[in-house]
């Protein structure tokens, strides 16, 4: 079981590295914001499996905080100012 979970960890972090490629390449800013969101979701997965492997129940709290705040960072990158001011 632990061997399987460790292999799952490798698969997840390879998925994170694929998101990294997109964050370096992505021609528009929106591609980069999407990669940040991908890394957030993958990070939640990595944290939960790390919590099982390292016997760290607090990792679920970390995953909760990460899940809640991922939306805030995307909102910060995409919100527009009032009175029609551009933010780009």
């Amino acid at each position, binding site marked *: *079981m632990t061997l399987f979970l460790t292999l799952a960890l490798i698969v997840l972090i390879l*998925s994170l590295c694929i998101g990294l490629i997109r964050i370096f390449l992505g021609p528009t800013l*929106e591609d980069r*914001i*999407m990669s940040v*969101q991908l890394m957030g*979701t*993958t990070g*939640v997965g990595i944290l*939960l499996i790390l919590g099982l492997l390292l016997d760290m129940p607090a990792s679920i709290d970390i995953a909760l905080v990460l899940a809640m705040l991922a939306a805030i960072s995307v909102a910060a990158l995409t919100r527009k100012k009032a009175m029609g001011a551009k933010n780009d």
Partner: protein
Amino acid sequence: MTELIAIALITVGLMFFIAGSIGLLRLPDLYSRLHALTKADNVGLGMMILGIIIISGDLLTSLKLILVWLLVLASSAASAHLIAQRARRRERGLWKP
């Protein structure tokens, strides 16, 4: 037996994850990448969390894990909407054949 079910669920979840990430890399259009990202990754995470719930088996932990999944689902939905809105506002990201 329960371990096998958990392993199967986590494997299916990982396959969805990989599919979502490769979709983010290979799809031509910003909006199709958004589809791959939000739908595939969230389903993958849900499958993985189901597997982890079967492994840990504690009631409080299972409830917390379901809460994590619901939060990721809701914030992914709102984030995807915000990203698509920003791209639409600037009228870019469409794939030109």
